């Protein structure tokens, strides 16, 4: 058990993530931000569209309240809500800890305890992580585990090659990725594996060209990307595909004008963002849109958004 707090140095991990040789500084910055993956839903909801109760008297973020909320949720392991979400606890840990880190309060939790629990979700025979102790491995939880260990700057506890072999072994003949041994394919898994390998500096373990070709095959006539070839364009899937292409230095495959057009049309009259045509604005799309916005800054498209 490790005692004391560890000042997170995940910034160092992000900066040293393997990016395409010859990328401009702006592109590297945008791609680095995409490596962080989805932010915490708490932070998303409360920072980007802060309801009145999340704000202090002076209109500032009530950071202490958010920290207390996260720590309380972390401790409540026996409530009904906690039990029915037990299998995705590792994802929840990533969201909560990222929030704490962004609020500079990662020391509110015991790093040693967290890391010990994370490692108890590890399957040494496969190299993957389950959503909680005793749960089957899947790339979804493996990425969250790697991200949390990055937050604490403790990738040293991992058998990095074993974890990298697990995720890279899920690449299929056509370049796509399955989420686990049972074979379901989704472009989200492409992003997750590429993100995991980038954080572990093991991108060379997959056939990057085939991975890119598969993602490009999921590009639609409207410039967006779906979950599979021919799948309906969806902001979340687009974030994953663009993120994967950014990390692999393959942004030139994107039709900037077309995709930019599609994204611009997601802004509703009242200013909010939806994820697909005809849907209502939803705060959950603000985070992926902000990340895509940062990417578009590097492509000089930012002034098209209102």
């Amino acid at each position, binding site marked *: 058990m490790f005692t004391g707090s560890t000042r997170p140095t995940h910034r160092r991990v992000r900066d040293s993530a393997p990016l395409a040789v010859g990328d401009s500084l702006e592109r590297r910055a945008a791609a680095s931000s995409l490596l962080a993956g989805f932010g915490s839903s708490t932070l998303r909801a409360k920072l980007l569209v802060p309801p009145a109760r999340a704000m202090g008297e002076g209109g500032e973020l009530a950071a202490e309240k958010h920290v207390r909320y996260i720590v309380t949720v972390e401790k409540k392991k026996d409530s009904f809500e906690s039990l*029915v979400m037990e*299998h*995705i606890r590792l994802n929840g840990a990533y969201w909560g800890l990222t929030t704490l880190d962004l609020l500079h309060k990662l020391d509110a939790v015991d790093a040693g305890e967290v890391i010990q629990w994370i490692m108890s979700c590890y399957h040494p025979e496969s190299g993957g992580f*389950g*959503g909680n102790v*005793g*749960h*089957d491995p*899947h790339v979804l939880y493996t990425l969250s585990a790697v991200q949390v260990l990055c937050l604490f700057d403790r990738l040293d506890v991992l058998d990095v090659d074993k974890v990298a072999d697990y995720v890279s072994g899920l690449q299929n003949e056509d370049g796509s990725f399955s989420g*686990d041994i*049972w*074979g*379901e394919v989704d472009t989200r898994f492409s992003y997750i594996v590429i993100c995991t390998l980038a954080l572990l500096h093991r991108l060379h373990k997959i056939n990057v060209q085939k991975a890119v070709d598969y993602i490009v095959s999921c590009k639609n*006539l*409207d410039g967006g990307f*779906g*979950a*599979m070839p*021919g*799948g*309906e364009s*969806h902001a979340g899937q687009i974030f994953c595909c663009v993120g994967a292409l950014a990390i692999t230095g393959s942004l030139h495959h994107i039709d900037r*004008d077309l995709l930019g*057009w599609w994204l*611009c*049309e997601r802004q509703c*009259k009242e200013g909010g963002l939806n994820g*697909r*045509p*005809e*849907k209502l604005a939803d705060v959950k799309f603000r985070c992926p849109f902000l990340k895509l916005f940062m990417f578009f800054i590097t492509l000089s*498209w930012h*002034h*098209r*958004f*209102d």
Partner: protein
Amino acid sequence: MSHSKALLILCPDMLTAWNSRKMVLSVSYDFTKLKDELQLCTMILSYSPKNESTWSHRRWVIKKVSEHHQDMSGLIERESLLVKEIAEKSKMNYRAWRHRCWLISYMTREQVLDELKKSARWNELHVADNCCFHYRRSLLLALLDSRCIEGENSLDYKSEVHLLWKEELRWNEMLIRRYQGRESLWIHRRFLSQWWVKFLLSGEEMECCAAGISLVDLFLSQEIYLLSDCLNVPADEFGEACIQAELAALYILWISKQVPAVKPQLEERLHSLGSLEDVLARACPERSRLWTHLIA
């Protein structure tokens, strides 16, 4: 199996429980047990229609069945019907419609044609559901792919698709005129027109009509006429006329960008309404940053 069933009824996205069932079902092929598995999924989807793990498990079961059965048409038809029923209660359900699009790869050409025909009525009653129009686009694309089949039927297939496409354009225009300001209808038209104009351009020398006007010119004139009607709809209290004008203007911009070869012809046909820029400035001033860049 009964324990995992109880767990999944309570918590359908518990992958570990689904996996344990897959392990048992993988021991030996049993069609009855796989059918029961589909029933369990159907029951869970009745109260949790967006649950990705359940849809994924369903696909795993169907793949297993397809490994042992040549004729999947009955199963695929029932699956498609299931999605339709779920979509009725759970609108714009991305996961459900993704599943329905996935089924297309198992459909025969006749089934695809049948699906196009049968789903038209549902679409007419759900014009704001972009998913169902995306499904139609997937069916049309599947027909285009099957056109590549060699043999004596390929020419028949080609003419059949062209007739279908023309009819789809006509039907889409009817819906656009009837239901003002529906984004999903205009997005469907963007797809249809883009392919149609490119097709007309590729066969231009062979297919001029009797008056000597090219078919592309004729089609573009009709689209400008539609635009003009949409720009002149009287304002309504719901603002739908405004949205209709905006979507119509952006549609013309779409064609000019996606098929640059017809841009001069479009500009020429637009002249009575002003330039494309004038039209966009009048119809969608709020998106000026977007179209200013796209026009440049």
